[in-house]
């Protein structure tokens, strides 16, 4: 059981990795201070708390840093273990959940980025690969309401933030994800009904505008 204590999250609002941590904290009902970082001008605290990677998200719990989103989510699950368990208690089921979160880590970020940063044939390939990637996840989901089974869990937390990027992908890639991956969209909408997810994921159009700004800046540089 955790006592009342100081929790600060160093984050950046469009980050899918940061969103995972926010969702986990909300699921557990943890009070925390959210600090949005300017990644072009990182705060002293971020550099001090994550000197190795200098990246967000970083959870600072009673002045001690925890880095890497998947590791942070697991930490939150262990410390605030009295409510909304995110990982199962059975070791095999836990390994299974970790495997799929790792799969999501290995493929999803790069896969989505390729779509909105590429053009022409490269983009066609990127879209195809992403659809295949989602199909693998759909197969894993099966008929369950969540990857965690009947309850929202670790794998759901790992994946759902990327849903906020779907509008960008569809607009940039000129395709509809629902046409090839209906199950994932249904699952995502189910997750969005959860307060922790609804209050964390940014508006998809706001994210789209952010990406347009970001691409302009890249173009200038």
């Amino acid at each position: 059981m955790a006592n009342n204590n100081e929790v600060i999250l160093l984050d950046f609002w469009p980050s899918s990795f940061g969103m995972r941590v926010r969702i986990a904290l909300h699921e557990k009902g943890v009070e925390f201070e959210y600090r949005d970082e300017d990644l072009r001008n990182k705060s002293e605290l971020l550099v001090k708390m994550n000197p190795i990677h200098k990246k967000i998200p970083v959870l600072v719990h009673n002045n001690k840093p925890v880095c890497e989103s998947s590791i942070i989510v697991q930490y939150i699950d262990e410390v605030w273990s009295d409510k909304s368990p995110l990982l199962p208690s059975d070791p095999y089921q836990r390994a299974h959940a970790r495997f799929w979160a790792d799969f999501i880590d290995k493929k999803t970020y790069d896969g989505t980025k390729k779509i909105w940063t590429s053009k022409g044939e490269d983009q066609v390939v990127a879209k195809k690969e992403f659809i295949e990637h989602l199909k693998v996840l759909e197969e894993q989901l099966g008929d369950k309401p969540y990857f965690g089974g009947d309850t929202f869990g670790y794998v759901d937390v790992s994946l759902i933030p990327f849903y906020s990027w779907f509008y960008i992908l569809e607009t940039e890639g000129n395709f509809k994800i629902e046409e090839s991956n209906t199950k994932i969209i249904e699952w995502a909408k189910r997750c969005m009904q959860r307060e922790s997810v609804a209050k964390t994921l940014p508006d998809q159009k706001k994210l789209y505008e952010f990406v347009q700004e970001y691409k302009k800046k890249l173009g200038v540089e």
Partner: protein
Amino acid sequence: MFAMRVKIALAEKGITDYECREENIVVSKSPLLLQMNPVHKKIPVLIHNGKPICESLIIVEYIDEVWNHTSPLLPTDPYLKSHAKFWADFVDKKMYPVQKKIWATKEESQDETKKEFIEILKTFEKELGDKCYFGGDNIGFVDIALITYYSFFRTYEYFSGLSLEAECPQLIAWAKRCLLKDSVSSSLADMDKVLEIIIEYRKIKGIA
């Protein structure tokens, strides 16, 4: 090198009664491997009572949770556990790609790589500090994640011309301490054999 991690973990837990099946992953993967790891089709895979567990660090954590009566590999304190996972993740994220560049690429592009490689090793030394092992008084999760790369140290020196003992004496001392443990010495591949295999591999791939 990833399979060695699992062997060390099993040995640390005193599990010797298991079947180890060598896969010929270059020539052809067995139907069992493809069935048990259809997503990545890679080793290692631990099959426990017919159920597969994949990804070396996930397997090590599973072993630690199931056989929790002896030799804990991860700390019980959540903060210390997250710290250990962070460093094991650093091994996979940073050490793996940089060390691969040393032996899997042509020699011309080595200076930057060598510099980066030594910096990574020195980062590990700093994290180790005065401790006997990354795990403290006994080997733990981070030691297991990293020590398997030691079997490639002769290979790194051969292709980079570096003397790793001169560059990172504390890390070499740590590695030798690990090797005094049966669980490690019985699991690590022979350094000379690894070098032979890499030389062959480079010939096959047409790398100078």
